[in-house]
């Protein structure tokens, strides 16, 4: 009887492992990326990228291990002991660096050449049909170079999946044993793999981590917009107010009051003169 691994294509197997592993690790990486962003550090360049990559390694190893065990149990009925995550992640990463690295170069070249060819084709079309409208031209040109680029990209991804699947198969064949458990027990087995031995400890520490990260988030999050509008008159910082000196204040008030009373007296005098005048008439 053929080994159960022979019943599945290596591409399917590699896809099943890597696709679920990607999504398993994703939320954790997102937390790190979010904290970096809140602190105005870009996780796609420089120190931010390095941090994210470093943090991603243990997350990915754990995620690959978990999903690979599940896939082996579910699809192949195989059980693997030992550090699944480390072995598979290592091979996947090396293959990724080789295949996807060269794929990056190949796709880049295809895009560059494709764009030139697309531009040439458009120029030819314009010779025959000079009124080619711009909107149609853009979409046509886009399709002309993205289709070959997408095909090249797809080929490289398939090559990586095929190679990774081949390695995964070898790994299962050498270190796995067929599970004697029924399907029901196997389902329970991978379900239990997601529940820690000490749930309370994990929940409490996870809650603690979240509270800590929340406080870090609050400290990092800018209060006002990091990208103000150039024309917006931002409120000026208030000038420091002068301290009040009671004695000076009293003197000044007294002087003011005297003047005020003098003015008032003068006004009243004038007023009474006027009334007298009126009465005189």
């Amino acid at each position, binding site marked *: 009887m053929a080994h159960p691994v022979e019943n599945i294509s290596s591409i399917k197997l590699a896809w099943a492992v890597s696709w679920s592993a990607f999504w398993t690790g994703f939320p954790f990486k997102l937390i790190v990326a979010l904290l970096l962003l809140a602190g105005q550090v870009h996780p796609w360049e420089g120190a931010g990228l390095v941090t994210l990559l470093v943090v991603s390694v243990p997350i990915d190893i754990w995620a690959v291990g978990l999903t690979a065990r599940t896939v082996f149990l579910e699809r192949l009925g195989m059980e693997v002991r030992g550090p699944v995550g480390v072995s598979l992640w290592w091979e996947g990463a090396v293959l990724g660096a080789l295949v996807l690295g060269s794929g990056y170069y190949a796709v880049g070249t295809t895009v560059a050449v494709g764009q030139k060819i697309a531009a040439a084709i458009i120029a030819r079309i314009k010779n025959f049909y000079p009124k080619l409208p711009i909107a149609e031209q853009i979409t046509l040109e886009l399709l002309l170079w993205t289709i070959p680029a997408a095909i090249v990209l797809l080929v490289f991804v398939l090559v990586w999946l095929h190679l990774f699947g081949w390695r995964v198969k070898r790994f299962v064949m050498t270190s796995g044993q067929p599970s004697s458990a029924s399907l*029901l027990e196997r*389902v*329970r087995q991978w*379900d*239990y793999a997601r*529940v*820690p031995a000490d*749930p309370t400890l*994990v*929940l409490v520490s*996870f*809650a603690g981590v*979240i*509270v800590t990260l*929340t406080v870090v*988030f*609050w400290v990092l*999050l800018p*209060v006002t917009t990091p990208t103000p509008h150039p024309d917006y008159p931002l409120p000026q910082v*208030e000038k420091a*107010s002068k*301290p*009040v000196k*009671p004695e000076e*204040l*009293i003197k000044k*008030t*007294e002087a*003011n*009051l005297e*003047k*005020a009373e003098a*003015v*008032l007296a003068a*006004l009243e005098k004038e007023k009474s003169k006027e009334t007298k005048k009126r009465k005189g008439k």
Partner: protein
Amino acid sequence: MASPQPKIKSKVRCVDGEVGEVVHVIADPLSLDVSHIVVRANGTERQVPVSAIGAVRGESVELTCNAAQFSGFPELKRQDYVSSKEVEIPHLENRIHVEPGELLVPFPELEKNCARRSFFAGFINVIGALIALPLVWPVLRYIMKPMYVPYDNHWIKIGNISKIKTEDIGVQYIFKKSFKDSVLQREEEKNHWVVKASPETLKKIYTHGDIPFYDEKGAVIWINNQTVPYVAFSGKCPHLGCGYKWRSHKTRGQVFLCPCHLSIYDASGAVLDGPAPRPLDVLPIQISPSGDIEVIDVEYKAGKKEQVRIA
């Protein structure tokens, strides 16, 4: 199902005689068909698969086995099942009628371990906190933005002392105050009262010495003193913030009277009668050389014994 459904309380007969009666019916949650009947015989409830049913005739169910084989059927483990009342399976109760009685549905294998269930439940709460908690502080600050704005300590010209002819008489000054109300530049009509105090009234007002005014940090921004015989009272009644008037009273003569709850104050602002908890609020006042009255529009919380500045 070809044969009629076995009914609750139906008598159950084996090939060699009656053994008991149907007490529950168990349904398969995926196919929505009856998978077992539960038969009570001599006080034990046994789970009999439908495959062992020969025929259902009215109120009796005939099994294809004999009594000895019947006692080989497993006993019902009630904890492995839930009642159809506690589970949401569309159309189940339309297809299988068991009233009165209980239709049972097997508990899924994965849900049988309580510790696992409670871990997932706990995890759900923790992740919920991951979403809710980061928002608490920013949302609180967002809502609180206009609640504790700095005090307005600008001097505002409210009128001229030439309007006052007699001492110890309340004179109302109505003025326009313009201010920034979030994004709007607004103008509001406000009023304060000014009294030219006689020496006795002045003495009453300054019983406790000079009157200082503070900013939000507690620093003195201004001090009123007896050298100025003019006293400005905030137009807001210290009882509950109504607008009071200078009126003549039957027994007390000329007084400040608040029409809302009938608080009465004399020209020095002291409470003569009514529910007011404190005298009228004195405002920082300055008289310019030309006799213009300038005040700081200080506002205190109403209804308190002590002055608590709010604006």
